[in-house]
C-alpha cells in the first residue's frame, strides 16, 4: 500500500480522561474508499477514536494525518469529513430541507444550487417527499436517513458513522445495513463506522479494527478476524467459539482436552502454553464413535432456525458448543472430529499473574496495593521482588470481608471446563483467576491467596 492510498493515518494516538486511559497508543492506516469498522465492547475507545478523527476532542499525544496533512489540531469545522451521530442530532428547530441544507448555506452556495443538491441527496436516501416536514415528526429510521443526507450533501472525503443504527429496531437495522453498503459502493468515499455489534461489522466492513481497553487487538478483513482471531478476546467477541487451554507440543501438533491434535500452526516453539479456538460449526459430530478422535455425551440441543446448537460433554470432562444441521438426542453418545485447519492456535497473553512486590518483614509481601502473608523465602524487609500467582490459586469470594483485597469482575471467558475471569482490583491492576464458580460481570469479589501459593522470586535484571 503506497502512501497515496492512505486517506487517514493515525500514529501513536493516546487519550485519557483524568487517570482513566481511554486510548493507548493507537496506530491505524485507513485506505481511500474503504469501509472500516471500529468494533469493540462499550468503553473500548472506539467512539473516542472517531471523535478524535472528527475533531470534537483533543488527543493527549499522537497525530492524525489526512491526505498527507497533519489535522491533529485542525478544528472540526475545517476538516473535510462529516459525521452521522448515534442519536441523529438533527436540528429540531429546522425542517428536513433546512437541516440538509445547513452545511451548504454556511458555504454561501447559490440558492438554486443548494436546492438541486438537497433534492438529489434526499432522493438517494428515499426521503424525497419529506422536505417540509418537521424533523420531530419523523420516525427513528427516517431521522437517520435525514442525518445521513445532511452529512453526505457536503460531499465529504470521509464519512464517520457513530453507531448510526443502534437506536433502530432489528428489521429496520438490517434494511439500513444493506442501504449503507450500497451507498458506500455507489459513492466510493471512505466510511469509518463505529459499532459494538459484531454481526453488523462482519456484514458491512472491508476491514474490521477490533478494540478493547483502549488498544487495537486485531485489524483484518471480516474473514480473517473470524477465522484467525489473534487472541482469546477477539475469538470470544466475534461470533460463537470454544476457547480452550492447550499446549503447543511442536510445530503442527497441539494438545488440548487431554488429546493430541494435528494443526496447521507453526512457530510457537515446543511445549508452549497456548489458547485454542474452535468454531462451533467446525466440529464434526456423528453417531458412530469408532473413527472419532473423541467421544462425548449430548447435554442439550436447541433448534436455531438453520442449525441445531448442542452442548456436548467429552469423556475428558470438557463442554463443547457444536452447531450442526442434524439434531442428536440428549443423552446419546457421539463421536467428534476436529480437522487440522479448523484449529486456531493463539499465543497466550498471560501464563500466570506476575507483579512487582515489596517484602514486609520476612513473611509478608505487598502487591496489588495490599499485604499478603507468604512463606519465608530468604528475602528481608524492604526487598523488591517478583511475585507470581497461578490462575488456579486465586480464590474469589462472595464476601468482600474475607479477602485480602477486593475487586470487580471485568471479563469472563468459558474455557470448556472452567471460567477464566479477569478482576480489576481496587488499586487498578488486573488479576486473573481460574474458577468453577459462576460470576457475573461487575460482581464485587474478595480476593484471597494462600501463603504457600505465592511464589517469590528475585526481580529480573531488566526490571
Amino acid at each position, binding site marked *: 500500500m503506497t502512501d497515496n492510498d492512505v486517506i487517514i493515518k493515525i500514529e501513536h494516538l493516546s487519550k485519557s480522561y483524568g487517570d482513566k486511559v481511554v486510548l493507548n497508543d493507537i496506530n491505524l492506516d485507513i485506505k481511500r474508499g474503504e469501509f472500516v469498522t471500529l468494533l469493540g465492547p462499550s468503553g473500548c475507545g472506539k467512539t473516542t477514536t472517531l471523535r478524535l478523527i*472528527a*475533531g*470534537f476532542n483533543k488527543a493527549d499525544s499522537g497525530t492524525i494525518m489526512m491526505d498527507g496533512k497533519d489535522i491533529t489540531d485542525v*478544528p*472540526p*469545522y475545517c476538516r473535510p469529513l*462529516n*459525521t452521522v*451521530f*448515534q*442519536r*441523529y*442530532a*438533527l*436540528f*429540531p*428547530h429546522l425542517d428536513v430541507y433546512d437541516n440538509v441544507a*445547513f*452545511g451548504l448555506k*454556511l*458555504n454561501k452556495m447559490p440558492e438554486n444550487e443548494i436546492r438541486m443538491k438537497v433534492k438529489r441527496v434526499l432522493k438517494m436516501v428515499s426521503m424525497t417527499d419529506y422536505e417540509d416536514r418537521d424533523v*420531530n415528526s419523523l420516525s427513528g429510521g427516517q431521522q437517520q436517513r435525514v442525518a445521513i443526507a*445532511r*452529512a453526505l450533501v*457536503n460531499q465529504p472525503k470521509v464519512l464517520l458513522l457513530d453507531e448510526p443504527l443502534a437506536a433502530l429496531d432489528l428489521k429496520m437495522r438490517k434494511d439500513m445495513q444493506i442501504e449503507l453498503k450500497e451507498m458506500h459502493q455507489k459513492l466510493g468515499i471512505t466510511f469509518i463506522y463505529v459499532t459494538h455489534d459484531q454481526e453488523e461489522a462482519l456484514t458491512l466492513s472491508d476491514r474490521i479494527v477490533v478494540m478493547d481497553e483502549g488498544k487495537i487487538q486485531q485489524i483484518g478483513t471480516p474473514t480473517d478476524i473470524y477465522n484467525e482471531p489473534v487472541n482469546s478476546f477477539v475469538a470470544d467477541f466475534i461470533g460463537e467459539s470454544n476457547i480452550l487451554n492447550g499446549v503447543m507440543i511442536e510445530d503442527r501438533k497441539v494438545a488440548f482436552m487431554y488429546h493430541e491434535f494435528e494443526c496447521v500452526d507453526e512457530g510457537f516453539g515446543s511445549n508452549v502454553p497456548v489458547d485454542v479456538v474452535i468454531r462451533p460449526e467446525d466440529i464434526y459430530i456423528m453417531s458412530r464413535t469408532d473413527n472419532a478422535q473423541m467421544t462425548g455425551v449430548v447435554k442439550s440441543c436447541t433448534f436455531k432456525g438453520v442449525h441445531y446448537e448442542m452442548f456436548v460433554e467429552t469423556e475428558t470432562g470438557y463442554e463443547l458448543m457444536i452447531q450442526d444441521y442434524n439434531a442428536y438426542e440428549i443423552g446419546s453418545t457421539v463421536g467428534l472430529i476436529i480437522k487440522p485447519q479448523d484449529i486456531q492456535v493463539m499465543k497466550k497473553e498471560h501464563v500466570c499473574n506476575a507483579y512487582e512486590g515489596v517484602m514486609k518483614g520476612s513473611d509478608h509481601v505487598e502487591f496489588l496495593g495490599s499485604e499478603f502473608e507468604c512463606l519465608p523465602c530468604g528475602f528481608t524487609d524492604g526487598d523488591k521482588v517478583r511475585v507470581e500467582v497461578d490462575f488456579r490459586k486465586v480464590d474469589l469470594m462472595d464476601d468482600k470481608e474475607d479477602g485480602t483485597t477486593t475487586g470487580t469482575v471485568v471479563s469472563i471467558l468459558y474455557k470448556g471446563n472452567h471460567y477464566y475471569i479477569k478482576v480489576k482490583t481496587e488499586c487498578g491492576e488486573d488479576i486473573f483467576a481460574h474458577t468453577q464458580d459462576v460470576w457475573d460481570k461487575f460482581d464485587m469479589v474478595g480476593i484471597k491467596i494462600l501463603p504457600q501459593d505465592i511464589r517469590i522470586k528475585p526481580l529480573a535484571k531488566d526490571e
Partner: protein
Amino acid sequence: MMKKFFAKAYIYILLLLLYAPLIFIAVCSFTEAKVLGNWTGFSTRLYANLFSNAVEGGNSLIAAIYNTLIIALVAASVSTLFGTFAAIGIHNMHGARKRAVQFMNSIPMVNPDVITGVSLFLLFIFLHFTQGYASVTLAHITFCIPYVVLSVLPKLTQMNPNIYEAALDLGATPRQAFWKVMVPELRPGMISGFILAFTMSLDDFAVTFFTRGTIGLETLSTYIYTDARKGGLTPELRPLMTIIFVIILILLLITNIRQMRAARRAAVR
C-alpha cells in the same frame, strides 16, 4: 357536602383577599376623587391626565416611568445575555464544581433585597463609582442574572448534546454554531428568563433605593415611596398601577400558554 363547600369557599376567599387591593385600585382609577376610596362618579380623567402629561407635580412621574422602563429593558437584556453564557458554562462543568457554582447562583435569589442593596451600595462607594443611572442598572443586572441562569439551564439539559457538535461538523464556526443552533434551542428559556428579569427589575425598590445615589434619580417604586411620604398618593398612580397590572397579566398569560403548547407538543412526540 358541607366539607366540599368549605373547601371551595376557602380557596375563593383566599383569592379574593389576594386580589381585593388590586381590584380596589383598578375600580378607583375610574373616578376623579382626590382621596383614595371616595367615589365621585365614573370618569376616565385620570387616564387622560396620565397620557396627556397633565399630572399634578410636573413631569416627575412620567420621568420615573421612563427611567423604570429603560432600566428594566437594559437590565433584562444584558442579564439574559450574560445569564445564558453562564448557564452554558455551568452546564459544561462536572461534579462538585458544578454543584458549587449552582449553589452560589441560588444564594442571591434567597438573599434579602435589603442586604443585596446595602452591599452593592458599599461596593460602589468603595470603588468610587458615581451612583446614578449606571449603578442602578448594574445592580439590577446583578440580581437578575441568577433568574436567567435558572430558566436557561433546563433547556440545556433537554438539548441533544450532539447538535452543537453536528453544527461544527457541518462547517459552522463555534460562533455560528452558537447563533444558528444553540440560541434557537435555548430561546424559550431565554425569553422566560428575560420576562422574569424584566418584572424583577420593574418592581425592585430596596436595591434601587440604595444604589441610586443623590442625583435625584427616581424610578416608579422610589417615586411612589417619596410621594406617599409627602402625604397621599398622586391620583394618577391609580390608572398607572392598573395598566402595569394588566400588562404583567398579559405577559404571564403569554408565557403560560407558550409553555402549555410546548408541553403538548412534547407529549405528542
